[in-house]
């Protein structure tokens, strides 16, 4: 075969490759790229109810962002988002992992019980949020009733009524959903580890703890990373839970970036500011996403 014909085959192959990615690329541009760019442009303008139909909105640079970062409410919302995400992540990952380990033991009913735990994850978030709202009620809520009967508290806790405890209640409900999700993904990671590895380790005299820290954890690294990543993204952009359970209140104490951006755009019609808040949300997730992709590609190398 001559060099020339070989080249043309390579070129053909390359063209074919582009042909394959073209539809996907087009999809991303139209469905994701357009709204994203529209949103970014909007966030640099001063579009609001005042000039939306009349026209006359102008570019104001980073003013929306500057105003947001000087607004104590927005800073509180930003703090809430991180407190919510990190607390949920720590709690649901720890308990989820413990559950995954526990149910990987082969005892009777391990499978069915694991299945039952998944119900929390399968329920629509709106239903979960309504349940949470009722369970954390002050006088008629089941949580206060239980805690009082057990004797942990003397007077009802004002869960969703007080700005200091509302976040705890919201985190608890979100973890209820997050734990089965973490358990499920980590279980699939656990089953990927061959029994032989554990067997030879115990032959070499490794005890329970050593087996966990030197075999289970390293072999699960990629699943753990994925679970934490998915968990972070899923939790960071939380919306429906707060929207239904607390509407972000009382006094913005459970407002997160998602609900705050929605309120700005759809309740107060400050479209540009709402876009800016959404872009802040996007940037946070984008950074985390890049970080994850780097970790993944490093491992592949």
């Amino acid at each position: 075969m001559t060099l020339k014909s070989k080249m043309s085959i390579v070129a053909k192959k390359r063209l074919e490759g582009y042909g394959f990615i073209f539809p996907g690329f087009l999809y991303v541009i139209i469905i994701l790229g357009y709204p994203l760019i529209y949103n970014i442009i909007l966030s640099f303008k001063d579009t609001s109810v005042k000039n939306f139909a009349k026209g006359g909105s102008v570019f104001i640079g980073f003013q929306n962002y500057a105003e947001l970062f000087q607004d104590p409410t927005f800073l509180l919302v930003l703090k809430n988002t991180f407190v919510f995400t990190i607390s949920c992540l720590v709690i649901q990952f720890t308990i989820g992992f413990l559950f995954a380990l526990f149910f990987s033991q082969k005892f009777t009913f391990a499978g069915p019980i694991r299945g039952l735990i998944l119900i929390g994850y399968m329920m629509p978030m709106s239903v979960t949020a309504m349940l949470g709202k009722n369970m954390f009620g002050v006088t008629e809520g089941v949580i206060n009733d239980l805690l009082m009967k057990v004797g942990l508290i003397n007077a009802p806790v004002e869960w969703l009524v007080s700005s200091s405890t509302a976040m705890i209640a919201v985190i608890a409900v979100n973890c209820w959903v997050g734990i089965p999700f973490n358990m499920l993904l980590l279980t699939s990671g656990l089953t990927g580890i061959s029994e032989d590895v554990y067997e030879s380790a115990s032959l070499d005299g490794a005890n329970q703890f050593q087996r966990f820290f030197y075999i289970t954890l390293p072999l699960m690294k990629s699943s753990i990373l994925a679970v934490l990543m998915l968990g972070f993204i899923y939790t960071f952009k939380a919306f429906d839970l707060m929207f239904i359970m607390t509407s972000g209140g009382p006094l913005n104490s459970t407002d997160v970036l998602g609900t705050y951006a929605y309120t700005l755009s759809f309740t107060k019609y400050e479209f540009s500011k709402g876009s800016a808040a959404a872009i802040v949300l996007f940037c946070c997730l984008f950074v985390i996403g890049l970080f994850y992709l780097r970790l993944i590609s490093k491992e592949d190398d």
Partner: protein
Amino acid sequence: MKGRMKKLLAVTVAGMMTVGMLAGCGNNVSQESSTEDSTETKGETKEVSIWHYFEHEATALEKIAEKYNELQDDIHITCTYVSREELMKQYTIGAVSGELPDIGMVDSPDMASYISLGVFEDIDDEIKDWGDLDQFYSGPLSSCMDSEGRLHGLPNNSNCLALLCNMDILNAAGIENPPTTWDEFYEVCQKTTNAADSVFGFAMCAIGNEEGTFQYIPWLYSAGADVTTLDSAEAANSLDFLSKLVKEGLMSKEVVNWGQGDALNAFAAGKAAMLESGTWQIAQFDSGDVELDCNYKYALLPKDKADASVIGGENFGVCTGSDAKEECAEFLKYMMTAENNADWCEIAGKLPVRADATELKSFWTEDERYAVFNEAMNYAVARGPHESWPTISEAIYTAEQAALLGEKTGEAAMKDASLVVNPILEEVPIATVE
């Protein structure tokens, strides 16, 4: 195998992220309304859609639409129920995409914002010569106007707030009649509160949305303040009075999470002796949606310096881009004739928006419950109209919540609210009708 698993996870993560992006920025790609294509030719019957969020009133609305369909051949009307939250979102999105119904229903304080957003057509030319306009009450009618006083729709019904008393509880506490002043009201609250059975003297809605502002406005005005004087001592007094009820355990702190429906449920369950109640709730009692197994009585809200209540209600407007603008305006006129308004409001349990409609039937004066609301309408104030009403409203309900939760004094909370509201009102004052 492992590598593939990892890639799969990476793809999933990427997928989740893009979903996150979309959730963050909910903007629709522009689409032209498909309903417009089917009605190109003139002379044929045009399809007209109405979007509304009436629930038990829906059949009454459909009846009027059907009657109109039979009366003429210009348009054929179809009514579609869209939940309130969703409908408001659709208007906002529709302002960008142009995908709007021909006629849309809207809560009266929101109308000014949607007019500003260009959701509703200016139909002033179509209806200004209609002599009947003089019969409309000015509060509801003004909520359909833009800042220049041009009409973009017609009000459909009104409601306001009054005090609902569980007379069984009041009588048991030795009280014969509903309270009329704040002092009497406070005393009744004290006498009827029973902490052991978790029965509170009073229940209202102080939730962090428009409903919360709606229920607070009468207290603000009764104290002698209004939206333009939030930094006055009177405004602070009104908040301090309500906070006192919470602090002394006469009203549940949970009111900050209660919508009007939640507060009504508490009252219906016998957990509150008195309720700040709206006109529409009478229909809920009569239809059996809410069961009240007690003797109850309506009275005007207690007053401090002046009687006060607040106007609620829905408007209908012709949406931008409708190819049947004139025909739609004609239908609005038909729907709002004195007879039709009276018929409709009687079926739906609402107050008419026209003086002559109220006179057509004895319904609103004979039923003593409606009679109270009919009287309260004389003192009821409108919210706005102002294009930035949602922002003003947010400042007000935030102040109320901060005070009720004990995080701020009435004075401090109202000061913060006035810092938001005053600059807005300085720039564009609330439109007033002569």
